[in-house]
């Protein structure tokens, strides 16, 4: 299972890098979103995908799943959503202001 997840993470990073390298602003933003989710999956995988009961003491199970990676990912997902939302608004405002979403054309602005 870990191997499968690692391959998935690598695949997501590949897609993210492809999107990040494109000229279109929206694609870059999508790339950053995919990249952060690849990081979340990696966090989950590296914590170990243990098969066990929910980490509650009342369960009386033999083994418990490690709760820490899930807590970390929950926090990281919230942050990545906030950043993605901010980036989308930023891209929209930039488009309104400059009239282009092509990163090549956004280069070399001196001052207004």
């Amino acid at each position, binding site marked *: 299972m870990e191997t499968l997840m690692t391959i998935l993470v690598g695949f997501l990073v590949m897609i993210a890098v492809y999107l*990040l390298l494109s000229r279109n*602003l929206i694609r*870059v933003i999508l790339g*950053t979103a995919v*990249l*952060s989710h*690849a*990081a*979340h999956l*990696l*966090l989950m*995988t*590296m*914590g*170990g995908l243990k098969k066990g009961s929910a980490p509650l003491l009342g369960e009386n199970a033999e083994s418990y799943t490690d709760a*820490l*990676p899930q807590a*970390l990912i929950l*926090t*990281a997902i919230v*942050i990545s959503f*906030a*950043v993605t939302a*901010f*980036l989308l608004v*930023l*891209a929209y*405002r*930039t488009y309104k*202001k*400059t009239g282009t979403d092509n*990163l090549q054309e*956004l280069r070399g*602005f001196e*001052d*207004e």
Partner: protein
Amino acid sequence: MNNIIAMPMIIPLLTGIILVFLRHYTKTQRVLSILSSIATVAVSLVILYQIQQEGILRLDFGGWIPPYGILFVADSFSMLLVVTTSIVTGILLIYAFSSIGQQFEHMFFYPFVFFLVAGVNGSFLTGDLFNLFVCFEVMLLSSYVLITMGGRKVQLIESIKYVTINVLSSWFFLMGIAYLYGTIGTLNMAHLSVRIAEVGQGPLLTVISLIFLIVFSLKAGLLLYFWLPGSYSAPPTVIAALFGALLTKVGMYALFRVFTLIFYHEPIITHTAIGVMAILTMIGGSVGALAYNDIRKIVSYNVVIAVGFILAGLAISSEIAFQGAIFYLIHDMIVKALLFLLAGTMIYLTGKTKIEEMSGLIRNYPALGWLFFITMLSLAGIPPLSGFIGKVFIGQGAIESGSFALLIVAFASGISVLYSLLRIFLNCFWGETIINEDDDVPLKKGMLVPCILFAIMTVAIGIGVEGLAPYVSDAARTLMNPEIYIEAVLQGNR
């Protein structure tokens, strides 16, 4: 329990939340923000004093004993930076009152400044890596908002680069955390240090440490500073000053923490890498500072040079060099804020940004000219001012450990700092005045007073080094001997 430790983060956070609801009441916002800054400074000073009395303090949230819970740790190093952060923010707020304008004040300027400070203070205080990430993000999100505030075209374009680079570095950070948790199985910094000392820092852990080096270098502007000059010259003066004074320092703090507490076993790889990067940073920063004739760019590249200089102290890695680096960090936060304010004020007064377009400002604004002169001397490290002692200690450390390349580049970079600022001074303040008396823009008191306060602080630190020295030497001792930190976190039963 020492609940007081959480205060430097909680007070700005609560103030920020309250100020969100008061957006239309400008006066109330100003009064509240000043009161809150004073409270933060007072609380931080109390904590700094307590650390000298009782040793390193810690706060386990929810009573979870480390290494299981989330915790805040306050040692002299982090508290010195928290105190400086709080003071610098307070003084910058005074400048903001007279310069930022109604539009910004109604668009949540003060709340986001406080969220930024909460993030910065949180990063200094936290005791585990994941909360360092969270506090970094709190700080970065506020900085994204502040950098785009106003929505000028340049700001929007520069902030796209800034945000994208930071998302990428956050990805690296998460990746580092994931690998570290996978190999070591803990994220508490003291516990990490113990476990790595037990198993030895093998090649795998060294690679992970290099991931952290990349992450924090991106945040601190060590070698990977390409995003810095553009984004620091785009926003309004106060915000640029806040960034120049605080943001890179957090990255540097993280580098110091990680490479003195956790990954200190392979200095030949990691610390050499930091040394080489510091040298390249100083050279690159010097080239940039000398190449541009836009005041904002020159000032931004000065931030880069300082980053290289301070991290030279980390690369040398001896107690005296750490002392120098800490002195220089404190000095740099104050003087960089002052430098950004002065540059911004000059641009406000003349409406120009290029140094050739200004001339003879000292005739119209003598106080501003002298303040700039003091700043220049302080940054160059002339004795009675605050930059001197840091340079001496880092130099001494470099000589003792025989790292002469670092020594030469560090002091040569000092000369280029002096030259780049001298260029501004000669072009803008000397010579024939080009402003006739009719369109002489008055220099507001509210802009001059904060600059004078900063100037007084740099002189006071320079003269009163004796008073600061015990705190700094305690901080350097803790950095040099990680056992002190580990013992305080893992064994104390406070």
